[in-house]
């Protein structure tokens, strides 16, 4: 089988790359061992939360932070991608998911500050419209409402941790936690957020919760609910509850598996299918065939079954250590498909900083592939290894996604750009 563009990996990076290649009219395949981090993550898209990384105050403008970072840290992926691709990539992403009923709000000029389910305060630039009312810089107090029997969301715990959090220059309003008097039908083992989100589409459930919220909420309070207000995109459940409660509501992503990540994944998957992209999940990619400095084909396997796939261009979107796009053994770290050398600490004893909570983060987290300005892996040297192989997402070297809060931004921007370059070749 032959495709114009073959994308390896079905995480946020791979799906973005595929959509942008297909937009250029390319016959595109996404092939992946499993699903990516995006299906379970909180669903906020972080652009840059802290810069320099050891700062304790969140950045107010991600754009200014990224511009400074590009001039000061030329090894950072943002320096390869550029602000323009970041901006275009984010609009491309917003349009894609909006077409499937999932609305993302935000821009590069401000960070939201939203509470998490464990009660920390997180800076992020883009989020689902249903999280928007959660910004802690708003003055009104917050009722955190939870459900008896729901796993992974505990209002009192969240409220307590928020009350002990500080953000320089911000006075955080009062949060109080309550468990609603609603029977969600959980049995002894507890209900997952996904199951509740599905039940939420029943009329009786919405009625019962709406009434309970109305009874609990005090004048002037907003309401935080776990992110379970419907499994799919579309705002009906959300709007009805706001109407019944008589105040603004925001969703807080639960611990994985999280409904917000699932919604986002499903929206992108629908877009991928609607764009005529073939999606094959469950296949290990291995043993590429190289001809004249180009990748000519890869082999894909499920169990003992192997197929050969030819392509004009290839995008490597296999994630970092978590997605096993990079593997380590006692002696080395390696990108396993093409055997590309990985930049970062080579010896194990250099992986971690001495202090666990070192504000600069651990060197291991910056491990990855170095690329040129066209996002082609450069291996050890300055020149690209293969003319038609591009890389994106968590696979890239030189940034600490979770520490500096830049994962979603780097992944979307590099995915978008890699797909576009692959689609133009």
């Amino acid at each position: 089988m032959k495709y114009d563009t073959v994308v390896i990996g079905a995480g946020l990076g791979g799906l973005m790359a595929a959509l942008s290649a297909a937009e250029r009219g390319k016959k595109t395949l996404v092939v992946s061992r499993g699903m990516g981090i995006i299906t379970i993550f909180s669903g906020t898209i972080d652009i840059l939360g802290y810069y320099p990384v050891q700062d304790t105050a969140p950045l107010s403008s991600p754009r200014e932070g990224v511009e400074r970072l590009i001039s000061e840290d030329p090894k950072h992926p943002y320096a390869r991608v550029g602000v323009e691709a970041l901006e275009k990539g984010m609009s491309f992403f917003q349009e894609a998911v909006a077409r499937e009923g999932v609305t993302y709000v935000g821009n590069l000029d401000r960070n939201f500050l939203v509470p998490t389910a464990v009660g920390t305060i997180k800076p992020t630039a883009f989020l689902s419209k249903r999280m928007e009312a959660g910004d802690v810089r708003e003055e009104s107090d917050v009722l955190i409402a939870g459900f008896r029997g729901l796993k992974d969301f505990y209002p009192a715990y969240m409220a307590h941790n928020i009350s002990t959090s500080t953000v320089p220059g911000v006075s955080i309003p009062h949060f109080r936690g309550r468990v609603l008097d609603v029977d969600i039908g959980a049995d002894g083992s507890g209900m997952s957020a996904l199951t509740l989100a599905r039940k939420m589409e029943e009329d009786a459930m919405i009625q019962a919760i709406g009434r309970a919220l109305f009874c609990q909420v005090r004048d002037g309070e907003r309401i935080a609910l776990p992110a379970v207000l419907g499994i799919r995109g579309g705002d009906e459940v959300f709007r009805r509850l706001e109407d019944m409660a008589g105040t603004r509501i925001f969703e807080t992503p639960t611990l994985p598996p999280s409904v917000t990540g699932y919604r986002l994944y499903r929206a992108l998957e629908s877009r991928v299918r609607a764009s005529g992209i073939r999606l094959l999940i469950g296949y290990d990619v291995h043993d590429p065939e190289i001809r004249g400095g180009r990748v000519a084909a890869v082999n894909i396997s499920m169990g003992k079954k192997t197929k050969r796939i030819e392509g004009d261009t290839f995008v490597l979107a296999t994630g970092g250590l978590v997605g096993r796009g990079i593997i380590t053994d006692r002696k080395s770290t390696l990108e396993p498909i093409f055997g590309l050398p990985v930049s970062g600490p080579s010896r194990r004893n250099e992986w971690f900083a001495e202090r666990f909570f070192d504000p600069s983060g651990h060197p291991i987290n910056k491990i990855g592939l170095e690329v040129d300005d066209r996002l082609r892996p450069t291996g050890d040297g300055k020149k690209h290894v293969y003319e038609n192989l591009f890389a994106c997402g968590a696979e890239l070297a030189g940034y600490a996604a979770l520490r500096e809060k830049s994962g979603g931004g780097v992944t979307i921007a590099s995915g978008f750009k890699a797909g576009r370059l692959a689609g133009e070749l």
Partner: protein
Amino acid sequence: MTVKTDIRYPTDQCIKCTICVEHCPVVKVTEKFLGPKQVGPDFQRFRSEGDEPHDASVEYCTGCRICDIVCPSGVNISELNTRAKIALRAARGIPVRDRLLSHAYMFGDLASFAAPAANAFLKLRPFRWMSDKILHLEKDVKYPSYSKQPFEKWIRESYHFESDKKVAYFFGCFTNNNDPSLGRAVVRVLERNGYQAVFPKQDCCGLPLLGNGDVRGARKLAKKNLEGLLRAADDGLDIIYSSTSCGMMIRDDYETYLDLPEAAALFDRMKEVSEFLWGLYEAGELDTDFEPVDLSIPYHVPCHLRSLGIGLPALDLLGLIPELHVEELETYCCGLAGTYGFKSEKYDISLAIGRELERELGRFDGPYALSDCEACRMQIENLSSKKGLHPIFILQRAYGLDAAEEEPDTASEQR
């Protein structure tokens, strides 16, 4: 049965990401099932070989294998579950109801002698009552109906094509008893491309038995089938199948679960019918003289096709037909899952899983929906007013082969 000692190994690869839980169709609709991560890699660490599983909730696993596909770490979760189910059944015995369901193939042989009587019997009130009260079979589900002329009879009486180019065809018991028009469509499409089908001696593949934990019974059937299939492979023939579940059972499960290492020799020979035809296309040997088919038609990919690792060959193939628009649905499991949906304690779960398919089907106006699996086609007909078609029927039509005379048999019937 010997348990491969390395099967526990990948449980250490589980990074507890919960991606499998998120995509498991059963978890989505019921809390009775603790989910793939917990009953799979989590519990596996506390099982020693052949031990009774800790939690009988593993019974609720449909065996759809979606968890295996989505897991980013390559953990073989469904295999752990299947082994746990087998251990559970070994410890507690197999209920009469499950034995009855999984022996439908025997019933099928009988029934085809007297198809109208069998169909009437399945619809009869006393049977309904008995099945509900005593056997806990679901009374609202549609049962497959039996055809008057089994495929094997048609082959004997009406199939005369001969050619030097030959393939072996494992058609399976459902095609034989319930949907022989599928078998006829397959051989006609092969004939159009110059291939004669030969038919190794065959019985039910054994999947329903394995699915209900009866390893011994499944193994007996497997051995019968292997005789003819191995001979065909020895003769250098490709072995094609038109039921993805039969194919998976023979190609993969005989070796994995039934302790039949000789089945490995079939692996490279076994080809799903569209996979085979696409292979001809890639070799430049497929007759591509297709008439346009002006249809817009939804396609539900069976989970067992997804887990065969052969891509989506029917989509590739149908892409060659002018004017045809086939849309892959975003559904991962129809919910029927072999005999699962026929059991009353699971019927609601099965229907709830099916809601997604139902909603997706609702987006299309036409009278047809495609799927390569007979159970999926039955579920399509359970859930909608659409007729479920195997993709090969579209090909048959595009070739202009007997379309008027050969309406596909009804896969199922309302009581």
